[in-house]
């Protein structure tokens, strides 16, 4: 993974000093709340319901063992000994003290970490596929370009105060795992007809109050121009995006108002001036950064491992875990594995300090000292030998990290919700927990098969409910917490936004509602169909009819 040189280190060190002084001035009353807000936000600090929340950047989801150990230590020392991995692949601390945050940042800087631009109206943490660099279907490893983009966007002076937040995702696979169409800019890397690295550029996607899937603004962009082309897009947005209404301030609203063709014309007019200016990426710079993402020193291994095969056939619990949590790898004899942060009945995406230390040790022992955070809020060890899987599983299992539910109903994407977040209309974690307990039967879960259930506590959609096969949105109904259910959303190349099935439900009804949706699917599915396929084939109607059947009878 990327290692800081003196330039990178100086920037985070200078940031700590700058932020320490800003915090000092705020606490001394020299900065008003309004003036401090964008400053602290651009350093990931929210003021939440009970305490500040600090969002620590995990650039494109990559962590080293050393960094995770540090995060575990920080969570113990400054918080309640746990952290929450978010859908932007970041780590959130729920209970730090405002006056401690400069010290936390100083500690992070010692392991090449920071909280720069993890919130606020600026370019946020760049996200990508959690299997980048190891996926067999990968065409281009996008991480070097993600790092180049990270550096370019860090304290970009022209884009320091955009109309609203700005999210970029990169992907280098045919099968999109980075929700490219759900971002303000999505960069899809591919090889063109000349076998050169090119980018298909998507723009104007986003979740939130007004979910919109991105549109293609440029089919073919040479990689050298990635920064200048993004500058053209963000400049048009910075100058012309709405600033009078924060709910209409994302780039998607501008793209929709102008139409993609007019927006493209304006971007191209800007880019005509920006193309080939000094921010054009050089071969040397890409090569320098790419060196940090070269293949691990893999051993030459056979495609099969006898001890693994034996364990697989003799241990059904291990076999269930392998089925859900072990993923193919481009190198023979290696696998990527997902450590589930979704044990039934716990807050999805949470990890204790102890678990962080355990995972850091596992990564050190089995996966070259590196790991990744997925946007589905799990942890990934990307380079594990087949022969190590059983031993790894036993240790993960002993620490509550081996629930074999990846991609299943209980692998719920969930925001912190009303338990923590001051924006939330409703709690989301208890809903996730109740659904997990309703379906706390692994055989049944495996029978239901691949399904994505996403929960957001408000329309800001941190839990990506719009693209969940089942999406749950917390709403406020006469000051009571209710939940709106949608089905048919999907991430990926064939992304779609879910349709709301009808009036919202009280919290205690939710497990039953999900049960009814699943019942319709089990009854109607063809042998090969996943839940989403059945929904797409049949539409919302039969699901809606069954879910609301009782109320109609009573009425």
């Amino acid at each position, binding site marked *: 993974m990327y290692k800081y040189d003196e330039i990178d280190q100086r*920037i985070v060190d200078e940031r700590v000093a700058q932020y320490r002084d800003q915090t000092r001035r705020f606490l001394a009353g020299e900065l008003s709340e309004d*003036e401090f807000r964008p400053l602290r936000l651009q350093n990931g600090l929210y003021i939440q319901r009970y305490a500040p929340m600090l969002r620590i950047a995990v650039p494109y989801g990559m962590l080293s063992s050393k960094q995770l150990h540090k995060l575990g230590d920080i969570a113990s020392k400054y918080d309640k000994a746990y952290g929450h991995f978010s859908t932007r692949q970041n780590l959130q601390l729920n209970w730090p003290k405002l006056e401690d945050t400069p010290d936390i940042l100083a500690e992070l800087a010692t392991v090449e970490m920071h909280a720069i631009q993890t919130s606020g109206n600026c370019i946020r943490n760049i996200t990508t596929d959690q299997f980048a660099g190891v996926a067999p279907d990968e065409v281009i490893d996008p991480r070097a370009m993600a790092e180049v983009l990270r*550096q370019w966007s860090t*304290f970009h*002076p*022209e*884009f320091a105060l955009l109309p609203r937040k700005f999210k970029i995702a990169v992907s280098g696979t045919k099968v999109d795992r980075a929700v490219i169409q759900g971002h303000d800019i999505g960069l899809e890397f591919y090889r063109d007809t000349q076998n050169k690295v090119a980018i298909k550029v998507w723009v104007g996607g986003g979740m939130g109050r007004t979910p919109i899937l991105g549109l293609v603004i440029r089919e073919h962009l040479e990689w050298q121009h990635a920064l200048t082309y993004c500058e053209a897009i963000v400049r048009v947005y910075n100058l012309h995006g709405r*600033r009078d209404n924060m709910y209409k301030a994302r780039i998607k609203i501008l793209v929709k108002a102008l139409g993609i063709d007019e927006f493209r014309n*304006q971007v191209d007019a800007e880019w005509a001036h920006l193309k080939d200016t000094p921010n054009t990426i050089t071969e040397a710079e890409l090569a*320098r950064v790419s060196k940090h993402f070269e293949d691990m020193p893999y051993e030459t291994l056979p495609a099969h491992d006898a001890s693994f095969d034996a364990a697989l056939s003799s241990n059904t619990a291990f076999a269930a875990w392998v089925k859900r949590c072990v993923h193919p790898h481009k190198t023979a004899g290696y696998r990527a594995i997902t450590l589930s942060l979704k044990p039934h009945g716990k807050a999805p995406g949470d990890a204790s300090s102890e678990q962080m230390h355990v995972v850091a040790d596992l990564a050190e022992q089995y996966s070259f000292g590196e790991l990744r955070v997925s946007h589905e809020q799990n942890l990934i060890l990307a380079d594990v030998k087949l022969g190590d899987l059983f031993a790894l599983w036993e240790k993960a299992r002993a620490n509550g990290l081996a629930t074999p539910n990846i991609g299943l109903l209980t692998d719920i994407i969930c925001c912190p919700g009303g338990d923590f977040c001051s924006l939330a209309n409703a709690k989301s974690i208890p809903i996730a927990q109740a659904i997990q307990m309703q379906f706390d039967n692994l055989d049944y879960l495996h029978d239901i098969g691949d399904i994505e259930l996403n929960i957001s506590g408000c329309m800001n959609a941190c839990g990506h409910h719009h693209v969940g096969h089942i999406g749950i949105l917390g709403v406020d109904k006469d000051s009571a917490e209710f939940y709106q259910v949608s089905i048919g959303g999907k991430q990926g190349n064939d992304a779609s936004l879910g349709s709301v099935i009808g009036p919202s439900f009280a919290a205690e009804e939710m497990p039953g509602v999900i049960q009814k949706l699943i019942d319709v699917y089990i009854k109607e599915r063809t042998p090969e169909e996943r839940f989403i396929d059945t929904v797409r084939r049949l539409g919302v109607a039969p699901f809606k009819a069954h879910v609301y059947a009782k109320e109609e009878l009573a009425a």
Partner: protein
Amino acid sequence: MSNLIKLTNGTASIVENEWTLIQLPASQAEQRVQAGKVVLFKLTGEQTVTPEQIAATEIPATGKIILPLTVFITKKDVLGSRIDIGSTGIWLDTHETLESLISAVGDINKLPIIAIHVERFADGRIFSLGTLLRTRYGYKNELRAIGDVLRDQLFFLKRSGFTSFEIRADRSAEDALASLNDFSQPYQGAADEPRPVFQRYNRIA
């Protein structure tokens, strides 16, 4: 005590303000507040300046003045010689377009100073306007940030091509000076230094 910071050959210091900022009189008409600036309709901005306001703007007979763009456009023929001797500058709001500035003045380097007024510090359009004036339109003279100008934006303003900063009256310009140097080696090229770090520094260790 002046609250004006000025960069001279890269060195910042607090200097006396030799320019008088000319303000439009308050409008008698109700100000029309546009809903943002959706370019589709080429809305000219949040506040409409009325001809009465322009006519009623008091311009001192002598001295160095910075006029609102709208006033300059209307009165430039009357001002003729004062423009030529370099004693007239222009200020614009963040919602006003550079195209209207350029078409009003022709050669912008005839202007000794351009100021951009930011009503709320969080309005980041000022950074793009500064950047464009320097990189697109080749403006070489003093570029000043006025209005809600606070120290925590100074580094970005400097990098966006601004060379003077009139710190909001209730804040200390002395304190603000330090923030111009918050970062010593920024990553990306910008108006003040077009080369990104990978072009100006050998990073291959």
